[in-house]
């Protein structure tokens, strides 16, 4: 048991899985010598060599596409896209092949691959370095879309993603790579994909968040609690397949709900959560569902990024609206 940052916890997951399973490979831009621009793959090339830790040419579509071939042949490639804002070049390979190979070959071939990418804002980075387009992957049948929210679940979910028989897009909230530490057990730990987690139980209102947004959401919950309101907080963890049942059960109980994500609002994941709740908890809703999200603008350069990102204050406001 050690107190690790999310960056280190992810590194631990990779190292342990590579140790355990010789078919696990890591590939991407600067993942070898450099250890990844966020150091998530640090030390792997020294331990596992250049064959299993591949510094690739600068070509996202090939990183995913070559990974698909490797996966079909029995390896388990973990492809790093340096920033999720550069993942669009690889989206065709994900949509047209990774997501379909099992179906197309009727189970004969499969693509047990993980595509990792740092995503989201909050690190004073350049344009395109704060993107949050999880919906592109969540809307694609055949893919799974996972977003952890802290060191311990990041490590456990990454292990599960690596072992999953299907392609998993794994977005790492870069704002919290090093923002805080958690106890992470030395021994292996997994978390089931497709399961949300109740982080805080409460009987007045349900707050749903994922990724880096969990922290301001918990902050908001504290503030609300200070005012005598008892919020339940759910950490989605897997965007697709979505664990709508856990959310619906909470909302059936509380009747009020706020969804938080940093992706742009329109056609974002919040809309799908609303839709599932409309289907599974409509009769229990006591007020309009609220969403606190990025605005429908291009993520601003960093001087104005804070204004774009949801924060505890906006979440509290939304909760109060929902509670009116």
């Amino acid at each position, binding site marked *: 048991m050690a107190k690790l940052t999310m960056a280190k916890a992810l590194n631990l997951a990779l190292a342990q899985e590579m140790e355990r399973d010789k078919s696990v*490979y890591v590939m991407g831009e600067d993942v070898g010598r450099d250890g990844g621009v966020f150091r998530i793959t640090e030390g792997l090339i020294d331990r596992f060599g250049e*064959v*299993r830790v*591949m510094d*690739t*040419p600068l*070509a996202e*579509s*090939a990183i*995913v*596409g*070559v*990974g*698909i*071939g*490797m*996966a*079909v*042949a*029995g*390896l388990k*490639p973990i492809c790093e896209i340096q920033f999720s804002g550069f993942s669009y*070049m690889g989206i*065709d*390979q994900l949509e*047209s*092949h990774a997501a379909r*190979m*099992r*179906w*197309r*070959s*009727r*189970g*004969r*071939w*499969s693509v047990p691959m993980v595509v990792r990418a740092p995503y989201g804002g909050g690190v004073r980075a350049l344009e395109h370095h704060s993107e949050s387009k999880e919906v592109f992957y969540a809307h694609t*049948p*055949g893919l*799974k879309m996972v977003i952890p929210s802290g060191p311990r679940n990041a490590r456990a979910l990454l292990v599960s993603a690596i072992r999953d*028989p*299907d392609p998993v897009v794994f977005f790492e909230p870069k704002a919290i790579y090093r923002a805080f530490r958690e106890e992470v057990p030395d021994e292996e730990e997994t978390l089931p994909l*497709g399961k949300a987690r109740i982080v805080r139980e409460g009987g007045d209102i349900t707050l749903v968040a994922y990724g880096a947004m969990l922290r301001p959401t918990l902050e908001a919950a504290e503030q609300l609690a200070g005012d005598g309101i008892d919020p339940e907080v759910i950490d989605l963890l897997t965007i697709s*397949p*979505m664990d*709508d*049942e856990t959310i619906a059960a909470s909302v059936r109980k509380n009747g009020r709900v706020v969804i938080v994500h940093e992706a742009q609002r329109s056609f974002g994941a919040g809309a799908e959560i609303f839709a599932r709740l409309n289907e599974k908890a409509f009769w229990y809703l006591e007020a309009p569902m609220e969403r606190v999200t990025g605005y429908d603008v291009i993520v601003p350069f960093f001087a104005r990024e804070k204004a774009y990102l949801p924060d505890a204050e906006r979440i509290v406001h939304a909760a109060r609206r929902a509670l009116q």
Partner: protein
Amino acid sequence: MPRTEIDLQQTISFLSILDEEGNADEELVPYLDDDTLRRLFRVMLLSRRFDERLLQLQRQGRLGTFAPVKGQEAAQVGAMAPLRRTDWFVPSFRETAAALWRDTPLSGLLLYNAGFNEGGLPPEGNNDLPIAIPVATQVPHAVGLGYSARAQGKDDVAIVFFGDGATSEGDFHEAINFSGVFSTPTIFLCQNNQWAISVPREKQTHSRTLAQKAIAYGIPGIQVDGNDVLAVYVATAEAAERARAGGGPTFIECITYRLSLHTTADDPTRYRSEEEVQAWERKEPLIRFRRYLESRGLLSEQEVERLEQEIKEEIAQAWEEAQMQMENPDPSVMFEHIYAESPDYLKAQRDAFQKEIGGG
């Protein structure tokens, strides 16, 4: 202006063995046993006849859109023949002849073309990928497959088929460049059939040949007469041998011609002349190989007739089988194989669907 010319340390050559009359350059003829030579011809003929039957059935409305292979049989069969079943075969959408060399069941191909994805299942024991429709997107897969083979200590290679048009796509470029860097055992088999739907080769790229694109990646490149099954065989065998020995990838441009339609949705009279097609009919791959085999005493008119009969029956029987499999197209099959294990919401959708078609 006096400048230093850079030595590229690499040249591109052209290979042809059989001429249009079926005369061989004896120096270049590869050693192949009689059975293999006969099988080469048989699969080419089977492919031709099957293509014709597919077209008939499509015109009758029994099959959907498909891409005829007529004219490209030598490029495909010649390229597959030197390879093993464990070598990876990565087709695009026009590789019927190659698939037939790999003993892909005709009934499966018919089923596929009738709109059933069960038909796309590759034969057990073959390392064959299913058909890839988006142009050039299959190319990186062959790089990964080759990389895996080497990493796993096998000497299998991967061959990937694509057209002249595909060379314009980003995926072609990224994949072949990647392959050069990692020296993967991959054969990039380009069938330059002169057209990408209505776009002629000259408008696809400004390079004199496609083969010379190999220079951009520092890998061996060769141009061959793609209607000459022996030349294609030799070029591919050489590439496979080099790849197995750790020598990395090869780019092969097969000069051939799409004698038929792009797909059954296409009308080539809009963009190319009858004369052009006729000129290429004379360079067609089956006749010249038949002449060559006849000249070597490996084939006779009677044998060809017997073959034709055999093939006819084979195709007829396959169509019977395919039709039987088509009788009950249980639509809930669409919910299968999306994931290894179906998530709850998908099971719920399937249940709702079944209730709905049950009239619920």
